[in-house]
């Protein structure tokens, strides 16, 4: 066995113990007061606490304010096209299961233009941590109603108020076969946001975290009723879910015992219109991951390829008479 010297050991520890700065890159260009900043802080803290190697971590995003996220992480990042963060991330994970893959997507990106991918990503249940940065409005394109905008939202495309009931990302996600982790966080309770981000990261399978975040530019007051009244936020606590500090419980008294393995209850809680449930709604660690189901146990070596190709060619080969006899 190779024994490491004390110095080597110390050096390695230093190398593997990352500081917050190790994950920071560039100055975020989000507006002051934007909820994305809170998500970035929680995620950078997660990376540091978990000691994620920056080169083995990938943040994949689509288009929109939320999707600027990878630029502010000093990891690998993929800032792709509108709505397609999930299939890109799936490709990354399929090819490289050794990488830790996060997805940052917004309510327009995920629930509108990329909605088909959202449904199917839940079904594939790949080991990805997905953050839905839900500010209920299109930000980067300057204030258009999104699928999660509350009915009546006045925007540049709905100047007389939006016409449709908002889509509920939690109930939609919980309605899809193979769902394995659904949680909701809010940007104004950073402590719980971090706990949820951490639980999501530790879940094997697709962890879907909807984060209600404020948009100070276009919908500055939309979340005020919940932000200003702690009783309208319902913390979900359970020994198998999250448990909250005494300090937090003093402010957020409205707490509900909810076992995250209970799907029926999860759907009920998710359907709540008045209260904002915060915590883990559903978790099932036993749903198989697509990459595990599909990943070949064989290494793509030249020897294997040569043998495989020749076996296939044999099926279609017309041999000259003399060779035919030899082959037979």
């Amino acid at each position: 066995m190779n024994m490491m010297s004390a110095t080597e050991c110390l050096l390695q520890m230093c190398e593997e113990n990352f500081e917050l700065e190790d994950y920071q890159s560039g100055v975020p260009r989000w507006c002051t007061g934007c909820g994305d900043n809170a998500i970035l802080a929680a995620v950078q803290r997660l990376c540091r606490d978990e000691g994620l190697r920056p080169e083995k971590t990938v943040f994949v995003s689509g288009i929109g304010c939320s999707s600027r996220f990878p630029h502010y992480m000093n990891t690998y990042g993929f800032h792709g096209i509108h709505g397609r963060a999930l299939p890109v991330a799936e490709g990354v994970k399929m090819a490289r299961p050794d990488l830790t893959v996060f997805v940052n997507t917004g309510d327009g990106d995920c629930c509108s233009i990329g909605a088909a991918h959202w449904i199917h990503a839940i079904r594939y249940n790949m080991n990805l941590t997905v953050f839905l940065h839900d500010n209920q409005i299109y930000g980067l394109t300057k204030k258009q109603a999104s699928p999660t905008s509350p009915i009546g939202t006045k925007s540049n495309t709905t100047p007389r108020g939006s016409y449709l009931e908002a889509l509920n990302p939690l109930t939609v996600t919980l309605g899809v076969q193979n769902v394995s982790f659904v949680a909701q966080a809010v940007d104004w309770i950073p402590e719980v946001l971090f706990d949820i981000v951490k639980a999501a990261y530790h879940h094997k399978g697709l962890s879907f975290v909807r984060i209600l975040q404020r948009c100070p530019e276009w919908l500055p007051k939309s979340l005020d009723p919940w932000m200003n009244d702690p009783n309208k936020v319902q913390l979900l606590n359970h020994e198998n879910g999250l448990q909250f500090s005494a300090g937090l419980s003093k402010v957020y008294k409205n707490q509900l015992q909810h076992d995250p393995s209970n799907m029926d209850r999860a759907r009920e809680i998710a359907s709540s219109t008045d209260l904002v449930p915060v915590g883990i709604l559903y978790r099932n660690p036993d749903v198989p991951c697509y990459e595990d189901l599909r990943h070949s146990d064989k290494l793509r070596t030249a020897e294997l390829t040569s043998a495989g190709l020749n076996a296939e060619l044999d099926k279609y080969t017309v041999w000259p008479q003399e060779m035919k006899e030899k082959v037979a």
Partner: protein
Amino acid sequence: MNEMTIQTSLKKAGSKGRVPAGKKPAVKLKEHIVEIISDSGEGAQKCGQSLGAIAAQMGNGIWTTEIIPAEIRPPARSVAGASGNRIRIGSGYITNGGDETDLVVAFNEQVLLGRVRAKELKPNCIILLESMWRTHTDPKIVASYIETYDRVVAAGYKVYEIPMEHECRTIVADARRGKNMYALGMLCYIYSLELKLAVDQILLAFGKKDKSVVDANIKLLEAGHKWAEANLDFCYSIPATRSTEPQVVVNGNTALALGVLASGMEICAMYPITPATSASHYLSEVFEKVGGMVHQAEDEIAACAFAIGASYASKCTITITSGPGFSLKQEAIGLAVMGEIPLVVVNVMRGGPSTGQPTKMEQGDLMTAIFGSHGDAPKVVMAPGTIEECFYSIITARRIAETFNMVVVVLTDAGLATSQQPFARPKFSDTWMAPPVDQSPIPAGAKPYDWDETTGLARRFIPGQPGGMHTLTGLAHDRDSHVAYDAEINEQTLRFRSLKLAALQKTLKAPSVFGDSKGDLLVIGWGSTKGAIEEAVETMRAEGKKVSSMHLQFLQPLPPGIKEIMQGFKKVMTIESNWSDRPEDKIIDETNRRYSSVAILLRSRYLVDIDCWSEVKGQPIKPGTIRRVMMDQLKKQK
């Protein structure tokens, strides 16, 4: 056990006398085109494929083409429902499906009518027609049969009524299963093919099934052979020289899939679409055995995005699609261009626009392939011209994609996809494989887009490489992959991405000329028309005409030397299967005529007055048609 049965039954067939009194000796032919057509599900496809394989075993050159109805189960006995196979058998090497058909086996008169109306039969074509309909219980069917029969006889076709159903019934209860082998037996007699080779085909197809199934099929085969021997007044032989090298007989889509297997790529992401899907079917069957996987995505866009994600993090990946799917992928293709992510996109072209003609061949997507995706999105476009090239083009495409960090589009079409042609069995080479994923640390100071000033090339950073962390973005970006708000940087990077095409172009060889390098007419083609064009050129050269052809494998970038080649000819024209305005149309003139795709490309690049001729009939252009077009062009010169 099977062996025993075959030998005894062969002996029995032989003992009845192989050459009946008065049998005419086999007429030697240089080539023949045979069609077997039925309602779908009656096995004409299988019969045709087997016939092709047997002829190939005999050493004949072959080209088989599937005749596919648009629907899975079109109504029985319908004109549009003809399903089957068309086999061109020759003494020498066959490069295309040829002209009209010489001999047809039809299981009913309606599918035959479909082929007659499509003008697919030679004027003196021999028709072997199932006769059961003449005595059918439904008087309407009888009337329809007699009407069609009389009409085709009157039209000069040589019609033989064959009691296939009746004869098969003496062997099996349901003649629908097995009539095809009876037909195969007849064809083996007609073309003097070894029956033992047909038995091999049956064993190959049904070997895993019940022994009784194998035996019944062999009996049907022999019965067909015997009946033909006893009753037909003609018999052919197409002399062949057996190849001394092993040959592979597959269609274009299988060749593509085998190319993916051989290229070392690990992931194929796709969404079902005709006529591309059979490549993915086959790949799904075999890819995992060599450590690969086929991902069926939720849609075409997701398939492309998945492939891009996998390519970005690992080895170059492939996505296989067809026209409408290719359109849907365009935005994602642009992302791969912008991010400089290697990617191979196969488009098995079909008739367009929109849903168009899903099962028919067309070369209508060349412009989309070259200019597709918004903005300037330079990508490599290649087009295999033979089944063999379908195989090798994927290996080349993978290598180019990874060397230049570019998107490589491979254009094949429904014609190549469903045609079979033997080619020399590939000998695997380690160099075909993608290199292992680079996970070495990035040297300090290196940048993710460190474009070379001359070639535009930059090293690709792959996740997992320490020190290479950056965010790839579809936004304009600088060498650090930082979003570029500066127009200057944007313009510079457009330049670098474009230079890569020029760098590739410098490595390409000039295309070769088929025929002399000087003459009256040069025909330029690309893709699946290769064999037909070259056959027409060969025929005309034998007649003393000074014509040649040149086939383009690379459409973007165009290889060097084309202008010099064109200068050797008095006139240059293109022949391809996409739309060009007809000069004879009243309002079409030189100011508004839309040229066919490759003609536009060549005219704009070389400033040469290239004429074009195109046909969009949903099927391969026939060599005879090309000959006629070239003759017309030569006449115009005089």
